[in-house]
């Protein structure tokens, strides 16, 4: 009934890494026309308010491991999630930076 051999819900990535990288780079592409500081903040706000925390931590873990396949702007924006300011309220609209 349960397809693969994996039985534990805690180990491993919640979503295949390749798909996360694709999604993150797409978000980076959207914010790319903004000046760098605003682009980074836009990406942070988006990941913080829309992504399941397991997806965020998998992305950060991948960045720690070198971030292969991720655009530079994505690495910089996602890295803001580690700072305490990352907890500021989510918002709609242009990046607030």
């Amino acid at each position, binding site marked *: *009934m349960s397809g693969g051999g994996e039985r534990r819900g805690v180990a491993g990535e919640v979503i295949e890494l390749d798909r996360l990288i694709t999604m993150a780079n797409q978000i980076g592409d959207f914010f790319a026309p903004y000046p760098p500081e605003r682009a980074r903040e836009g990406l942070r706000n988006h990941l913080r308010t829309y992504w399941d925390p397991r997806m965020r931590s998998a992305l950060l873990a991948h960045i720690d491991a070198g971030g292969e396949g991720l655009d530079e702007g994505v690495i910089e924006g996602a890295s803001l999630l580690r700072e305490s300011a990352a907890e500021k309220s989510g918002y709609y609209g242009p990046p607030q930076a």
Partner: protein
Amino acid sequence: MPNPRKPEKETITICAYCGVGCGFKAETIGEEIVRMTPWKEGKANHGHSCVKGRFAYDYWRHPDRVRTPMIRKSIDDPWQEVGWDEAFAHAASELKRLQVTYGRSSVGGVSSSRCTNEEIFLTQKFVRAVLGNNNIDNCARICHSPTQFGLSATVGAGAASQHFDSVLQSDVIMVVGANPTEGHPVFGSMMKRRVRQGAKLIVIDPRRTESVDSPHCRADVHLALRPGTNVAILNSIAHVVVRENRHDPEFIKARCEWREFEVWAELVGSDDYSPDTIGPIAGVDPEDIRRAARIYSSGPRSTIYYGLGVTEHSQGSTGVMCLGNLALSCGMYGREGVGVNPLRGQGNVQGGSCLGSWPHVFSGYRFVTDDATRESFEAEWGVGLDSEPGLRLPNMFDAALTGHFKGMYIMGEDPVQSDPNQNHIIAALRNMECVIIHDLFLNETAKYAHVFLPGSSSLEKDGTFTNAERRISRVRKVVEPVAGYQDWEVTVKLMNAMGYDISYAHAGEVLDELARLSPAYSGASFELLDRVGSAQWPVDKNAPEGTEVLHMQQFPRANGRGTFMLTGYVPTDERVSEQYPLLLTTGRILSQYNVGTQTRRTANSMWHSEDVLEMSRGDMQVRGLSDGDRVKLASRFGSTRLKVVESERVNPGVIYTTFHHAESKANAVTSDLSDWATNCPEYKVTAVEVTKLLPADWWQGESVAERPARRELEAAVAAVEEVV
């Protein structure tokens, strides 16, 4: 055929098909519906209707309706009919077992825009308050989630700014990626009436749709763009507006964030988006882009209506923002006859969006990460709630494939048929241990389910729907539910079986609860709707009978101002190649509805017995095809079979089909690409090739089994198993 029988009773209710939400009078003799007639007092339809609402209602008593709950241990076992209590107990114990074994986040749910506001609200309550996570999504994920995102970003409210009647005051109507005469016929007729009175019509659509050219309707400008180039074209229109100084500085200064306007004007005003640059990319004459921009900006009252041809793209949210940007820049907000308006596919997509059936927001689009909002729900529901966003529908399936998502309550949805990349969905479902389907029929997804809870149609329940113009109307029970319970009662009993003690005397009490927790609905109640007929949100203390036009004085953003988003054009990764040289796009026809689960079970099928593939003469000649040939349609993701017909409605290089029949399996070929912001699938662009099927191949496919769809599905599953 004359109906000689006199109805005993009339019930005023609302059609559940498209997002127009026509008021209907259901006429009954005992427990039999004998006629549906459009209601003259209905504010969305004023006594008009289309052939779906008028005639396609008999599905409700179709023999295929499931009338008894069913369970099974494994999807390889036959279904076992059980009583309701046993079904609830089984479902509850399985969900609990999964949460103990795999964690609190290993289960979730999805609600349907076929269901009432009350049912959608209860489904998200079930997931948040009872399952204790935010893995809740709505089928709007796969159609209009970019609308919520894109319009919230620019004007602060993810909804139509106008009421339908507003179009009768428009001087210019721009239709983007929608075909109202087929998909939203009653609104389409009103639009045509206004065009006949002299309003100018601009259509942006890859296909020469019925809205472009049909009796009583001809577009002044048709931009037959290459699928996937919406953002390029809309930026180019904005380019002309900005470079020719056709924008409205007074409006922007008074009502918008000027700084963001300047940043935006610099982007779209750059040479990258000049018509001469974009025209060749989008396959459109640059002069037509200029004409469209000049007509739209001249107004004086220009309005935009759009559909899934905007949203279902990898830049779907960006496309919606483009529309918001354009309307703001030309001052086309806050009056009659202007605005930006999504045409919603299902009867209650707007309600599904409003009521917090999303993994990241509560009702009113308020973030789950916001403490004050979350605390208001915790106080009402008496439990602590998860402060982190949950998984979206496509991510639930992704997480099922990695073993992190094991159980799901699916209310009124059929992901195997309606979600993209069918093989991927099936593999994900097979990896789950408890799939609960709550539906009218044993749908395609039920093949992979463990619990089946019989649903009730909108003719069998009480509640409310919110249509595409934000109009909240009563759904009234016309006949008794065939399986004994209205859908909202089933969800409540499932919550009870999980140990959450709650009860409602009737659906109106659910509406009262959601009104207490949702500012835009705060004045809504059965009593109000019975009294005034219907009300457009916001319905609150400032507008006790609702609001027809939004944004008259200010925009619902922190500073009250509309704003501009930067909308760079990023081409989709789905591109034609030597192997797949054609672009497939999809649409609807008047007589059928979505995947046809309901309309195909009525006499409406006589009007549209199968989906066909439209192709230009040149593309057919190159492939040696003639009208009526059976063809194989293949993409990188899968293949299906269809009949091809020659059509002048599509340009060379573009082919088109409807998706109303399960046998067509359009989603066997669609890709796994999705919108950058919302993961709304990119249904509208798929690179494909078409080859002629030898008569023997086709004949074999058709004659061996009664239901080719089922056989092919099994073959697809077998193929997936080989991969796994």
